[in-house]
């Protein structure tokens, strides 16, 4: 029998035994235990070391507010640090280890820091590591990082999977304690769609931890009956192990469901699911958290919150000690004493700060009135407590109650400020709740059982009536209100030794007073200066006592002192859950071109372009690197014919009687008189006159145009045109729909492009130079009747076409094109060769259309039609955008042809210093031109169009390079355009 502290009773299943280890030591527990209850059952009081001073620490609470009992769970890649033993469900085979010590837990070498405490007070880091500045990155930060952080990551990939999801309800009930169950029952009975979420694995909240009765049965039994009734309702979804962690806009709540954390293995299923819950109304029934009282050495293992001690006794059948003293400032602490005594545990003393008669009879316990604990003894576990009177009381467990704080956190997630209620010495939700939220029960300051049950029902009924449901007439469950008087005591001033307020961050009463003395008096400053209220528990047990001590210092009221802003998440959310499925190759969806399969089999290397995977080049055996492949693709395309999948370019189908007028307004250049069967290059401006996007638009019939956009802007251009259509031109008959994915489109470029296409395009269609000249377009059929579209346009500068077939034929089409091209040595080419050829031709692309350049800069100033209005025209006419010395797009070649140009280099006139003041422009795109045999570049330079032949310096301070370049025409290849008209 290892479970020396196991009692009878409680809600654990003693018929089954679960084996687990803590620091390698074999222990046993039962289903229904948490790791914390099982550790206590096994007599393990010391469970960890504190963050800063490595003080021995035990279990303080029985819930998610736990500051001390942080452990590492599992092993190997599954190892998870900083988990709270108090909410870890026990399972067979669980391995847990303590953290934040060097050497064993019992003999932590880092405990020496506790001796240095006088030097490590609030603000220590800020004051100490200021100087010398250079030491920070190399010395201080690594050293601090090494000693900080509590647990350790496995440093391996998380082997678990996570998921996300979406839920909808009329009423979300947050918390399944008495108020939440009462609310869910009322709403469920009315027929409303209800989600009831609770962070515990056993719903019931404090009903499971108390001996109070509801409807004539034990609270736990009543909770079980309520759960059974709710489970039978189709309109109610009960979610246990689910923490509602944040209240967001429009009634949306974030919730984390822990689906397999209580199992030895996830069995390939998501470990946790992050839910987004869309609610019409919500009832916050998050209960309350007990607060400790700060006194000297109040952090020893064995000193626990009184309500938690009661939970361990009543719910888990475990006593945290064999000789217990109770220290309380309110009636509630007395129930701990009574419940312990009822279970046969020796309660020696009840130390009450009030000068008041006994609340109830506790056999064997001595009632000490008007008294307080000011110090304790017992380094690794409590041995005795010392009262302010000097009396020493032997005890291995001290149950402390400083009163209860409503869990108002979610009421503050949209900047709500809580209100101080003097009668219960606690903050309650203020008036400005998140829209749709109401609060019930202890979270609302209704701290007693009957009040919580009634309020849960009434608040839920009001919420669902608001939604048009008829509330059930059934009365609230019957119970009595337990005694709940108390007084406000936050710390014991007589204590000479350190009195801990925030045990997770090792912040003492003295630290708070020092923060005040040094001028950090606002609660937000107090938090940042002392680290109070940070880390996994977010100060759930520490915040209010700390604020009260600060209020004492400043002489302000608690209301005026206020709280720090509570933000989501209420409890920690693993990064894995936030990532969900978005990891590795599933980070984002992929878009594949219609010829992707063919490209994969033919040596393609793919590059991500937005979500698209595009073939970057097609390597052939023997090629030494990408440049070999790209040079070959360019040379063979310019020499004969090349084929490139250009499906990714955006395609927008534009129809309507006013389609031509619409395009005339959207594009800077004229489209109104574009003949049917012709394509035109178009330039779009933003409202401010800067270039937005370019592409081609083909007129397929009088009222039907097909627009092509750049790949990057496909969605943006569509969205913008939809805005123009609906908001700026609502009287036009024009209709837009995207067909980007619908057509597999291939560029066929090179002197043999027509010869190749002639073999594929059905004979009925004339594609001769006369019948289908440069910039022609039309509907054709290919390969014996498959509908297709043919455009004679060229990005490469060669004789070129783009042919489009319904996407389902795309993979087959590339095969047909390649087969037809065999006799011409046709090559597929990728985005790199595409880029090289467009630079050789001097075509602008994303590097040049970078959101800062104008039509004038691009040398396209003449395209902004003076004869019509268009978006951006007015602001494009601003003088600053039409300066004579504006930058112009031109070409550059290195004076020393063997030198490689560097994109991003800035141009400096010869003889000038390379400073910002002398900046003449910058190089936007560079490539090695296989056609010319040297590096070439495009770039913007002041008055470039008038400076051809001039030599300037291209300077790149980043690469620490400088070279002389000559300004030339941007059209390196075929400047007269003879090839594309051939």
């Amino acid at each position, binding site marked *: 029998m290892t479970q020396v502290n196991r009692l009878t009773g409680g809600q654990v299943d003693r018929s089954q035994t679960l084996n687990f280890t803590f620091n390698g030591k074999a222990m046993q527990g039962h289903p229904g235990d948490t790791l914390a209850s099982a550790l206590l059952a096994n007599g393990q009081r010391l469970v960890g070391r504190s963050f800063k001073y490595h003080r021995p620490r035990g279990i303080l609470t029985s819930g998610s507010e736990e500051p001390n009992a942080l452990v590492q769970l599992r092993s190997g890649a599954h190892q998870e640090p900083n988990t709270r033993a108090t909410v870890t469900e026990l399972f067979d085979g669980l391995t847990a280890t303590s953290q934040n010590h060097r050497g064993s837990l019992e003999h932590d070498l880092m405990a020496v820091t506790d001796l240095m405490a006088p030097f490590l007070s609030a603000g220590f880091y800020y004051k100490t590591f200021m100087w010398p500045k250079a030491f920070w990155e190399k010395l201080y930060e690594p050293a601090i990082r090494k000693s900080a952080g509590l647990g350790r990551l496995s440093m391996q990939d998380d082997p678990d999977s996570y*998921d*996300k*999801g*979406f*839920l*909808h309800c009329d009423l979300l009930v947050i918390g399944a304690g008495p108020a939440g169950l009462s609310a869910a029952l009322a709403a469920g009975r009315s027929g409303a*769609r209800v989600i009831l979420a609770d962070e515990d694995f056993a719903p019931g909240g404090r009903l499971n931890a108390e001996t109070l009765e509801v409807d004539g049965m034990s609270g736990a039994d009543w909770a079980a009956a309520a759960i059974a009734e709710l489970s039978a309702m189709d309109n109610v979804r009960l979610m246990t192990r689910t923490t509602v962690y944040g209240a967001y806009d429009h009634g949306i709540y974030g919730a984390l469901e822990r689906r397999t954390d209580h199992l030895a293995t996830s069995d*390939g*299923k*998501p470990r946790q*699911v992050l839910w*987004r819950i*869309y609610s019409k109304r919500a009832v916050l029934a998050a209960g309350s958290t007990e607060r400790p009282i700060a006194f000297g050495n109040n952090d020893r293992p064995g000193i626990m919150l009184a309500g938690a001690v009661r939970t361990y006794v009543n719910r888990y059948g475990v006593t945290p000690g064999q000789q217990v003293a109770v220290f309380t400032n309110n009636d509630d602490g007395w129930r701990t004493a009574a419940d312990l005594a009822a279970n046969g545990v020796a309660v020696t003393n009840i130390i009450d700060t009030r000068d008041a008669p006994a609340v109830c009879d506790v056999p064997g316990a001595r009632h000490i009135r008007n008294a307080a604990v000011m110090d304790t003894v017992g380094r690794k576990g409590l041995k005795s407590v010392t009262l302010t009177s000097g009396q020493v009381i032997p005890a291995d467990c001290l149950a402390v109650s400083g009163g209860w704080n409503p869990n108002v956190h979610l009421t503050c997630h949209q900047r709500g400020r809580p209100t101080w209620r003097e009668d219960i010495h606690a903050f309650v939700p203020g008036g400005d709740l998140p829209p749709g939220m109401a609060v019930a029960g202890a979270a609302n300051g209704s701290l007693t059982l009957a009040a919580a049950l009634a309020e849960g029902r009434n608040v839920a009924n009001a919420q669902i009536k608001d939604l048009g449901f008829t509330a059930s007439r059934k009365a609230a469950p019957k119970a009595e209100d337990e005694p709940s008087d108390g007084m406000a005591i936050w710390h014991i001033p007589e204590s000479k030794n350190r009195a801990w307020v925030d045990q997770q961050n090792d912040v003492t009463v003295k630290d708070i007073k020092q923060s005040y003395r040094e001028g950090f008096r606002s609660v937000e400053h107090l938090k940042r200066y002392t680290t109070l209220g940070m880390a996994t528990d977010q100060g759930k047990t520490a915040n209010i006592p700390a604020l009260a001590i600060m209020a004492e210092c400043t002489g302000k009221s608690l209301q005026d002192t206020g709280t720090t802003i509570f933000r989501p998440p209420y409890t920690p959310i693993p990064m894995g859950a936030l990532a969900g*499925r978005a990891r590795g190759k*599933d980070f*984002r*969806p*992929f*878009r*594949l*071109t219609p010829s992707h399969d063919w490209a994969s089999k033919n040596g393609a290397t793919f590059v991500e372009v937005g979500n*698209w995977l595009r073939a970057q080049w097609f390597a052939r055996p023997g090629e030494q690197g990408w440049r070999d492949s790209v040079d070959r693709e360019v040379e063979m395309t310019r020499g004969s014919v090349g084929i490139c999948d250009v*499906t990714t370019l955006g395609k927008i*189908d534009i*129809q*309507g*009687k006013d389609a031509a007028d619409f395009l005339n307004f959207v594009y800077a250049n004229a489209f109104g008189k574009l003949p049917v069967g012709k394509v035109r290059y178009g330039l779009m401006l933003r409202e401010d006159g800067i270039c937005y996007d370019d592409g081609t638009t083909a007129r397929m019939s009088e*009222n*039907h145009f097909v627009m092509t956009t750049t790949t990057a802007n496909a969605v943006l251009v569509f969205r913008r045109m939809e805005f123009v259509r609906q908001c700026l031109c609502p*009287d*036009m*008959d024009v*209709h837009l*729909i*995207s*067909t*980007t*994915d*619908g*057509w597999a489109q291939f560029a066929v470029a090179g002197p043999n492009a027509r010869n190749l296409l002639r*073999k*594929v395009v*059905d*004979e009925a269609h004339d594609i001769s130079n006369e019948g289908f000249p440069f910039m022609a377009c039309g509907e054709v059929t*290919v*390969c*014996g009747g*498959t*509908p297709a579209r043919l455009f004679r346009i060229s990005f490469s500068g060669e004789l070129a076409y783009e042919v489009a*077939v*319904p*996407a*389902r*034929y795309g*993979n*087959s*089409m590339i095969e*047909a094109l390649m*087969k*037809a091209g065999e006799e011409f040595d046709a090559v597929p080419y990728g985005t790199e060769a595409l880029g090289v050829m467009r630079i050789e031709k001097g075509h602008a692309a994303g590097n040049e259309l970078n959101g800062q350049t104008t039509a004038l800069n691009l040398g396209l100033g003449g395209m902004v039609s003076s004869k019509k209005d268009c978006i951006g025209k007015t602001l494009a006419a601003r003088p600053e955008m039409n300066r004579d010395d504006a930058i112009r797009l031109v070409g550059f070649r290195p004076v020393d042809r063997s030198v490689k140009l560097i994109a991003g280099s800035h141009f400096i006139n010869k003889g000038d210093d390379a400073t910002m003041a002398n900046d003449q422009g910058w190089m936007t795109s560079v490539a090695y031109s296989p056609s010319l045999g040297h590096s070439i570049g495009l770039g913007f330079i002041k008055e470039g169009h008038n400076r051809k032949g001039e030599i300037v310096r291209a300077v790149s301070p980043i690469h620490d390079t400088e070279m002389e370049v000559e300004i030339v025409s941007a059209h390196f290849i075929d400047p007269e355009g003879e090839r594309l008209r051939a």
Partner: protein
Amino acid sequence: MLEFNLVSAPPLAGYDQRFDGVNLTAPTDLAIVSLALPLGGEAAAEKSVKAAYGAALPGIGKSALSKDGSARLVRLSPDAAFVIFTHTTPDAEPFVAKKIKGAAYTTDQTDVWTGLEIAGPRARTALERICPIDLHPASFATGDAARTTMEHLGTLIIRTGDDAFLLLSGSSSAKSFLHAIETSIHNTA
């Protein structure tokens, strides 16, 4: 010329899987043609559609089956609708244009989309992991249609039966879409 006969290969062609409580199928030869109602010609277009399909164009966010059940009309916005039907050859657009006598602007959307039909008692549970839309039978009635996003992918969801939904998403991302739906089914199994 016939040596270059083209083969139709939609990205999810032939996909048909049975999972516990969920069937996932890529409908064969699913054709989609968009209708855009001309400004000022809405009434004429609606009349023509009704004459062609024996069913009126439904309201926005709703769909209706043609009288013979062979086509589904989905209303997406005041001036836009889809006709979804089964059609083998790549001429769905002229087919519909002729049927409605050119009373609305038509665009072939067949190859723009990939279709997946998810059906069975666990379909909603699987979709909970991916679909932001409320699919409760009382909120999303049979025939209802909504545009949404699933795993970053734009999706049109149509409830086609008690526990059956037709999902349409971009054909270029069909494999990612299928993976997302399969993962949802696996994760909730």
